[in-house]
């Protein structure tokens, strides 16, 4: 192992060309794209799942087909097509980072919609009937009775999807977005004979990122779940 290999290039691995007046890159760009895409995917997925539960049959059918299409395309293809073919087909020129964020948000929202629908369905008709019997509207029942319980059930699915999303940002190299995997490739191609060290370091960074998120999420799940709380106090 050759520690200078990592220390000399550390700032490039972490921030890309940013400290030298270039665009943001490296781990920081991976974090930024993951953060924005996770939030967008969660909002869209929640909206999609609710629409699948509450929407009219027409809306549900349309959503189901959109989800089927998105789930049926490899992420790398969606990124590639959005980046190179949207400008050709519609004259829409979306920058690389935005393309990747949009593609990851859409595909993960498709998966999350199903998780949200399943989470809502798991609550059971009794709770719905109870809400309606109290004089609440369907939407109020959803907001006050069903969602607070459903979200707890869905949380593990959300964490799964977030971790997957973080790892999928590495596909951005296909359109030249300088995230962690791409800058590692650049350093590796210059140094030539240390792929093991370089990609091991990169893998550790990804692992820390994903493991950190999982631990944090598991912790919040515990605080949130009244049963765990009860168990702790007992």
């Amino acid at each position, binding site marked *: 192992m050759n520690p200078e290999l990592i220390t000399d290039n550390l700032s490039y691995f972490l921030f890309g060309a940013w400290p030298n007046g270039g665009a943001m890159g490296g781990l920081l760009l991976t974090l930024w794209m993951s953060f924005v895409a996770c939030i967008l995917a969660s909002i869209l997925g929640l909206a999609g799942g609710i629409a699948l539960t509450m929407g009219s049959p027409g809306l549900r059918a349309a959503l189901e087909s959109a989800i089927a299409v998105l789930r049926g395309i490899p992420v790398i293809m969606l990124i590639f097509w959005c980046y190179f073919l949207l400008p*050709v087909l519609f004259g829409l020129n979306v920058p690389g980072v935005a393309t990747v964020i949009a593609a990851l948000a859409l595909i993960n929202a498709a998966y999350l919609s199903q998780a949200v629908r399943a989470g809502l369905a798991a609550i059971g008709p009794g709770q719905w009937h109870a809400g309606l019997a109290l004089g609440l509207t369907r939407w109020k029942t959803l907001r006050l009775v069903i969602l607070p319980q459903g979200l707890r059930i869905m949380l593990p699915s959300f964490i799964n999807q977030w971790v997957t999303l973080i790892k999928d940002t590495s596909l951005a190299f296909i359109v*030249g977005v300088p995230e962690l995997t791409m800058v590692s490739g650049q350093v590796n*191609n210059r140094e030539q004979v240390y792929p093991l060290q370089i990609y091991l370091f990169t893998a550790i960074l990804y692992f820390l990122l994903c493991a950190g998120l999982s631990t944090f999420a598991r912790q919040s799940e515990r605080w949130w779940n009244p049963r765990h709380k009860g168990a702790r106090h007992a």
Partner: protein
Amino acid sequence: MKKALLTALALSLISGLAMADRLDDIKKNGVLRAAVFDSNPPFGFLDGKTQKINGLDVEYAEAIAKKIGVKLELVPTNPANRIPLLASGKADLVAANFTITDERAKQVDFSQPYFATGARFIAKKGALKTAEQLSGLRVGVDKGTTQEILLRDKYPKTTVVAYDDTPLAFAALRNGNVQAISQDDAKLIALLAQAPDKTKYEVSPFALSREYEGVGLPKGETRLVALVNETLVQLEKSGEARKIYDRWFGPKTKAPLARDFKIGDKTE
């Protein structure tokens, strides 16, 4: 699939006609977006000292941006993305070891050549002496390069394995996945010169072709092509082209290589 691509191409041609001249757009935006390699020393690579992309092709892109009087924005590319970047309007030009071929000229326009090379090979010392030995070998190439096309066409008995980039192909050679890799000789000589294990390998004594590299430009941008050509001629006249060459291939560099082609020379 094919039909969709054709429709896409037709649409791009129509929209291309409707758009303003690209040179005007570049001036208006104040930025020239040049696609360059980020992983291929010494043409375009990440400079370890400055942590910026630098190289011979990058210097040509800089000269063109200076000529227009705008800022230069580098768009990193691999070999396979060069034509898509131009076709989708993501880059205004490609300065990335781009060999001029008739097939490519159907999709993009080229400036006059500013660099000449030939397709050669890197293999273990003594393993590859003549082109006949290529039959039955596994040879690594870069996806979407002229070497890939040439080997698949003319050497059907050679197993061609396509990689994303030359250093990756070289890694495959080191690991024994392939027995040789093929690229432009200038690039191979520079690659080998920087390799820590260079004593084990050598560049083949024979070349399969003579190739000329030019600046790739979007189809039909005549004013931009004229400006790039004019810049290249001026660089040669002022001696700047030789200086650029010497910075990367001159006698004091790690990969000295005699300059056997000047801008404006007759091509074979």
